[in-house]
């Protein structure tokens, strides 16, 4: 992989130049109150690459919370058209674990019959990643993410103090850099590696990812499910903030004028009570413990079985969002180990 470097000052003018070119929508991490979010950049000055974690992961750009798939005139079957709404988009500062999550989403939406609504949005995106520069008390990414994030990143920024080292991951990323004030990298690989990993995680998965699935399967009937299930409020916060949760509901909407309608996808989640209810009212996952178990197994076993990579990227958002303090998958492992 080619390594280049750029001074922070020149990097910011590079971002400003990209914004003024208006060739794509430019999104980055900005501060909102005491939190950080991905949002459209107004100026490179707003870009905060020193953030701890964002409230929502960047999945919202590829699978918006509410997304129109079809438009139609009510009652007129002939009028169905499939629509997709997107701009070319460049996103600055996606932490490596969120990129690992995008890799999983890419797999899920292109597997079998591909979902054009997602795929087109991704094809029109350029992802510029980074490595955390600040602690976040719930994060355990180092213990669950390998290097799959390189499969989706176009460029990675490594903070060296006054400069960034840029890892040029894709051809698309390389082209994007054309015309910027780049220099050859002068740091040793060891220095770069140190800069990428010097912020240690505060948490970790207490078993290695390679045995996690087997470990959990052995504990399919453990009391942990009921214990955590009893504490769960079924609020769904943990799935909405999760970068690897992409389940959705399909709903119908009619304009107030009644002249036009649309079929939309909306975020949905298996922790919500009615997710698996069928028409006669039968709920295939009625107990909170069953829903809690399903969500955890999906991360630890079902996704890895399908896509080889661990289905939780350790961002810690769920743990932060959960009022019951049970949502972090690492906590399930911890509890089981303590009870053994």
């Amino acid at each position, binding site marked *: 992989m080619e390594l280049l470097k750029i001074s922070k000052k020149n990097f910011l003018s590079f971002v400003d130049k990209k914004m003024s070119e208006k060739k794509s929508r430019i999104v980055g991490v900005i501060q909102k109150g005491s939190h950080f979010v991905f949002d459209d*950049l107004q100026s490179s000055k707003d870009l905060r690459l020193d953030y701890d974690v964002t409230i929502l992961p960047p999945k919202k750009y590829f699978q918006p919370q509410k997304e129109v798939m079809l438009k139609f005139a009510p009652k007129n*079957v002939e009028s169905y058209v499939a629509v997709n709404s997107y701009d070319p988009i460049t996103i600055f500062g996606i932490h490596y674990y969120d990129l690992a999550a995008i890799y999983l989403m890419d797999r899920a939406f292109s597997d079998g019959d591909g*979902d054009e609504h997602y795929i087109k949005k991704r094809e029109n995106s350029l992802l510029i990643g980074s490595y955390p520069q600040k602690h976040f008390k719930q994060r355990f990414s180092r213990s669950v993410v390998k290097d799959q994030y390189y499969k989706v990143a176009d460029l990675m920024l490594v903070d060296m103090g006054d400069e960034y080292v840029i890892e040029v991951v894709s051809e698309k990323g390389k082209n994007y850099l054309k015309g910027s004030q780049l220099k050859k990298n002068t740091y040793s690989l060891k220095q770069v590696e140190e800069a990428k990993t010097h912020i240690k995680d505060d948490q970790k998965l207490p078993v290695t990812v390679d045995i996690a699935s087997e470990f959990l399967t052995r504990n399919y009937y453990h009391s942990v499910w009921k214990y955590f299930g009893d504490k769960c409020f079924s609020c769904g916060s943990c799935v909405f903030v999760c970068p690897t949760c992409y389940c959705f509901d399909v709903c119908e909407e009619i304009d107030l004028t009644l002249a036009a309608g649309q079929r939309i996808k909306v975020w949905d989640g298996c922790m919500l009570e009615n997710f698996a209810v069928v028409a006669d009212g039968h709920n295939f996952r009625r107990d909170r413990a069953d829903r809690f178990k399903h969500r955890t197994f999906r991360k630890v076993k079902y996704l890895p079985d399908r896509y080889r990579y661990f289905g939780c990227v350790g961002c810690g958002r769920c743990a932060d969002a959960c009022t019951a303090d049970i949502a972090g998958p690492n906590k399930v492992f911890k509890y089981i180990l303590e009870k053994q």
Partner: protein
Amino acid sequence: MAETYPHKEVIEKTSIYLPEVATLREKRPMTPFDTYFSFELRDHSLGHRPGQFAEISIPGIGEAPISVSSPPATDNRFEMVIRKVGTVTSAIHSLEVGEKVGVRGPYGTSFPMEALKGSSLLFICGGIGLVPARSAIKYALEHRDDYKNISILFGCKDPAQRLFVDELEQWKQRDDIVFYETVDTTDLSTYLEMSHMDLSYRGPVDEWKSKKWKDNVGVITTLFPKLDYVDPRETYAIVVGPPVMYKFAIMNLHDMELSDDHIILSLERRMKCGVGKCGHCQIEDIYVCQDGPVFYYNDISYIKGVI
């Protein structure tokens, strides 16, 4: 939120969510809540295999997964039987012949009719489970010589809820297949209390008030003793019915020494997208819309609560 870039909306020609147009050609009530529909696609056949389903859309109302009840066809028609239970199914019920619906599909796995060639088939169908099973039954009857014994067991709640009654009569008459049926009860008084239900079609209720049911009464497993010896090595059971039926049917099949890889079932789950994306139909690591709805029981028997 300020947007710095103009929004672009494009038409997707190949969306997996885009329905095609089909026209309702025939409609006929079968029971107080189930209606038969025959739809026709414009210029091609649905191309389904027995046991598959399709998503039927009414613009402005929504979409519902429905099994195809007819066997594979060369023309553009396909048949469905739909129970009125909620918004979408009610909207489909109120369609007139000549009106149109949206169709996506066919989706999912099918009964392995090719692989079953040379074997005996034992169909066990409960209530509306006859609807998907019928596509396989009719297929097997069209290719009668490809299979050894064909036995069909059908059970429903009461005589007024029997589906495809003309065909049931024909199956009963045939001497190259075995057909037994049963009802749980002959008591029709519950229909009188169903004032909340729109019993627009009272035909079978009125009919069975004056007629006496002479056949078997009892749950579907009471039909098993009527069967002659079933050779477990050459027989495959195809089981489709309401969730409660599976456990008892499978217990009986085990008593007859059928192994789990000789038991084939079709499962129902909540479905939305039908194409393995939305997550609603997941049972553990399985997506019922893609890995199912038809399964060999030995592939899923490890899952707690699967039936």
